[in-house]
């Protein structure tokens, strides 16, 4: 019993450290890649290849002055970044990064828990993340922040539906809500081949859910200064940043898990494949940011409600017909 608890504790702490390191280097990756897309060098002075830059940034943010607008709602203003960060980290309890492996003669599973409603837990936690954005924007008592958080809430709830419908078709195909079962169902054929429409819906929804270009209206610099976190500085701002970048890693990991066969792949061991696929998707996120201009708000809502939602519903029906005909 003690070994079981110890293994779980070590796994949890190791995963949190990995996710936070992943977050730190995701920011560096984005700055370096964006710089390359724009024919610049990007941060390359702090350590070899700029590898110490995230830590320099972190230390700088810790020692930044902390002040709060006098008219802000004090409690909620402090709570919002914490909500954002906890919700972003929590989903890693159920996302598998590899199958069970042999480790010092013991069988260790490369996930914290395999619960039977895994994907619902992930969707629920990402919905809670919205509260961080909305409460942060509202409690600052700043007009830019309020507009940013309103836009954000409208956008996130609209594109959450697209994601939810895409996941329903995946669940229909796999016959389970557990993420481990979903990956195992893709042993022979990845779901991206069976669910191309679902894949597109999920990916577009993922871009919108993480407030990324071309859907970065909640923090559109040219109109809203910094959107919902206008009044946040120092380490509280960094906590929102953790929420945003861990969200990108989560969405890349989810695309990998739901559509690209998770840890299945030739030659390399499982966790390596998960890492390679996730990294490729994070680069794609950044590439899209460097390429696409921002959409207008009316275009955003029209696209979500008049294209993605009907398409998602039709995709569910089509999947059901095919499963009924083939699977019986």
């Amino acid at each position: 019993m003690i070994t079981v608890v110890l293994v779980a504790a070590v796994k949890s702490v190791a995963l949190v450290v990995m996710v936070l390191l992943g977050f730190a280097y995701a920011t560096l990756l984005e700055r370096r890649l964006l710089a390359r897309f724009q024919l610049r060098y990007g941060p390359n002075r702090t350590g070899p290849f700029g590898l110490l830059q995230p830590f320099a940034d972190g230390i700088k943010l810790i020692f930044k002055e902390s002040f709060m607008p006098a008219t802000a709602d004090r409690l909620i203003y402090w709570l919002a970044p914490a909500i954002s960060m906890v919700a972003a980290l929590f989903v890693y309890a159920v996302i598998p990064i590899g199958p069970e492996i042999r480790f010092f003669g013991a069988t260790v599973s490369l996930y914290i828990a395999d619960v039977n409603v895994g994907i619902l837990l992930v969707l629920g936690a990402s919905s809670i993340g919205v509260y961080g954005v909305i409460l942060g924007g509202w409690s600052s008592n700043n007009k830019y922040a309020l507009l940013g958080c309103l836009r954000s809430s409208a956008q996130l709830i609209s594109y959450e539906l697209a994601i939810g419908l895409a996941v329903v078709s995946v669940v229909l195909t796999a016959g389970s809500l557990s993420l481990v079962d979903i990956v195992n169902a893709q042993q022979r054929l990845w779901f991206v081949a069976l669910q191309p429409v679902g894949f597109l819906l999920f990916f577009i929804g993922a871009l919108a859910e993480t407030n990324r270009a071309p859907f970065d209206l909640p923090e559109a610099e040219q109109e809203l200064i910094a959107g919902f976190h206008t009044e946040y500085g120092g380490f509280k701002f960094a906590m929102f940043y953790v929420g945003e970048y861990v969200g990108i890693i989560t969405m890349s990991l989810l695309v990998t898990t739901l559509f690209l066969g998770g840890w299945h792949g030739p030659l390399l061991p499982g966790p390596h494949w998960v890492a390679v696929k996730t990294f490729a998707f994070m680069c794609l996120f950044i590439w899209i940011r460097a390429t696409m201009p921002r959409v207008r708000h009316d275009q955003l809502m029209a696209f979500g409600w008049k294209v993605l939602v009907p398409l998602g519903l039709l995709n569910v029906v089509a999947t059901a017909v095919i499963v009924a005909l083939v699977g019986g």
Partner: protein
Amino acid sequence: MLLLDWLYVAAFAVIGLLLAALSLAIVWVLSPRSAYPQKRMTYESGVVPIGQAWAQFNIRYYLFGLVFVIFAVEVIYLYPWAIVFRQLGKFAFFEMLIFLVVLLLGLAYAWRKGALEWT
């Protein structure tokens, strides 16, 4: 075994909460403070803020919120159906088809009424 998995999930949530609390504590303890009234004004492009930000805003956000609630509940109903779909066979398929058609009609109605327009 399943209960143990849920315990792990709860423990992981506690680790996340502790981490967030630690971050806020770091801010509280380490960051310097020297606020004066001008610094603690909200940012409004450099001018003195006019009134509060907690004022009226576009009703459209509320409409989209309402439509979202309807469809979110519908998607939740789809999940249990999707899991046991293979065992239930044709009956469940046609029942859910009727449910989906009713909802598509609802979407078409909202569309027709202009609830999905942003003007």
